């Protein structure tokens, strides 16, 4: 059966090479992050974390959890849930930062 025929019958398939590439990227990002936080000063480490960690999470969500290939409904729901948590923590800092 052709790939397209399989997908029509069994849903979208993420090919093995894609999965392995994502995995490799995640591993490399982990090493980069570790390197930066151990070798460089704290401020750079914090910025690296703030960018690289969400990127890693995105890769897992998008490829391993198939979110890239889902419809707008699921993507919106994920966005709502994550934003809610971010807003809770953000609002908390109205108190914590200014006390």
């Amino acid at each position: 059966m052709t790939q397209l025929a399989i997908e029509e019958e069994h849903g979208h398939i993420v090919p093995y090479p894609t999965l392995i590439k994502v995995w490799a990227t995640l591993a490399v990002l982990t090493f980069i992050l570790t390197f930066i936080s151990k070798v460089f000063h704290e401020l750079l480490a914090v910025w690296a974390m703030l960018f690289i960690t969400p990127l890693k999470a995105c890769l897992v969500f998008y490829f391993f959890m198939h979110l890239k290939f889902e419809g707008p409904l699921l993507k919106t729901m994920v966005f709502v849930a994550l934003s809610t948590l971010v807003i809770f923590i953000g609002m908390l800092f109205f108190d914590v930062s200014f006390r």
Partner: protein
Amino acid sequence: MSAMAAHALGDEPSYLEAGGRGLRSWILSTDHKRIAILYLVCMLSFFLVGATLGVLMRLEQLTMGPTIMQPQTYNAMFTVHGVIMIFLFVIPGLPAVFGNFFLPILIGAKDVAFPRLNLLSWYFFVTGAVLAVTSLFTGAGPPDTGWTFYVPYSIRTGTNVSLAVFAAFVLGFSSILTGINFVTTIHRLRAPGMGWHRMPLFPWSLYATGWVQILATPIIGITLLLVILERFFGIGVFDPAKGGDPLLYQHLFWIYSHPAVYIMILPAMGAITEIIPTFAHRTIFGYRAIAYSSVAIAALGSVVWGHHMFTSGMGEMANVVFSLLTFLVAIPSAIKVFNWVSTLHKGSIVVEPPMLYALTFIFLFSIGGLTGLMQGALAVNVHLHDTYFIVGHFHYVMFGGTGFAFFASLLYWFPKMFGKMYNRRVATLAWFPMFIGFNMLYFTMLVLGVMGMPRRYYDHLPQFHTAHVVATVGSWFLVAGLLILLGNFVVALFRGRKAEANPWGGVSLEWTISSPPPMENFEQVPTIAGPPYHFNPVAHR
């Protein structure tokens, strides 16, 4: 419509017969209607227990000094009263009973998306309830921390906090799973032709509520878990001696418990929105405004939790931000009130019992909402926080609001659920002592609070005495009315007249099927051709 009604009124046995009649067939049933009844029976029982505790507390306040109990008992009473009423009655509230029973029917479905998960939700509810009751009688006695379990006292007190808090944790699962079930049901099981803007407004409110249940409940879950961990292992997150900050407990607690009050009120508002058009014989005014304001209340209501903490030691910045947001969240609530009142305008109003209690809801909830706004003002809050004003406020919204909406819904949907009609005159009669008693009890509390009477105090000073007596007598009238109202239902179950399919002239889907409904609700899945609340014009006399 009548042809459709005739078609649906087949000779099918109702859900009360089909599927068995013994106890096993009920507690193993995955039928959403049976699960709703299971919740109803449990919840009304707990409500009566909670109400009894309330009556006893009021009896204690009938005289200065000890009346019928000692201070420790009083502390346990207001704690358990709160835990039972909030976690076992008001939060499960309308979703567990009327949401379970009517959500599938209102959207033209045969059941919820996950019927077995639904039954599991009820099992979690019962387990949590049993654990909560057990905490009263084991260990060093019932918790005395208030239902809010504030640290550091909840960590240090010897009473049975861990078990009570674990019970609430288990109950949280019930709420989360119900939220997941309802949100998925609304996305996936709407009848053909029922786009989002043709869906009735009770399901809209259940949708918004479901999201709050899913996102907010886990936060209290982890908070309660941390209390248990603190008590057993001394982690230190809330212990100042170890660097912990007790205020963070309050943040975590209220991040759930404020949205929780929207879990309590949104479905209540949704049910009222079903009732009013029927008895005004007019379509709802501002369908989209009501639908979207439900979502807005859920969203805005999730960022106002700090208004419970104005006097706790938060920084000024936080105080101002939370106060502003609290004022904003009143706007969508007010929009709903305006829409309900506008629906009445030029309507053909019939004040049957459901309508009477629904109108009372609008009045009592408005008082509750306005007193909430008063508390949201920072300078005023300094004087009102932890006084009887707060107690009055939340009873107006939770009891006058959700409670009365619950009764209105029961009055509206009882004939459909059980196929029996209750005595309408008795139901109307019950209203008088209830309304008078309610206001005697809770309006007096508002006055007491402004005068300076603190809450959770076992005793009171002479200047508060008269008001306390008035409140206690009010509680007797209220309870008398409640017993009449509920007793009327019980009598109707056994001796009520058989109810028709559509006793009130409603136009939503539940009135097109028999009373009580058949097991799978609809013989054929209905196709929806137009917007909800479409009434034929009534010829004016």
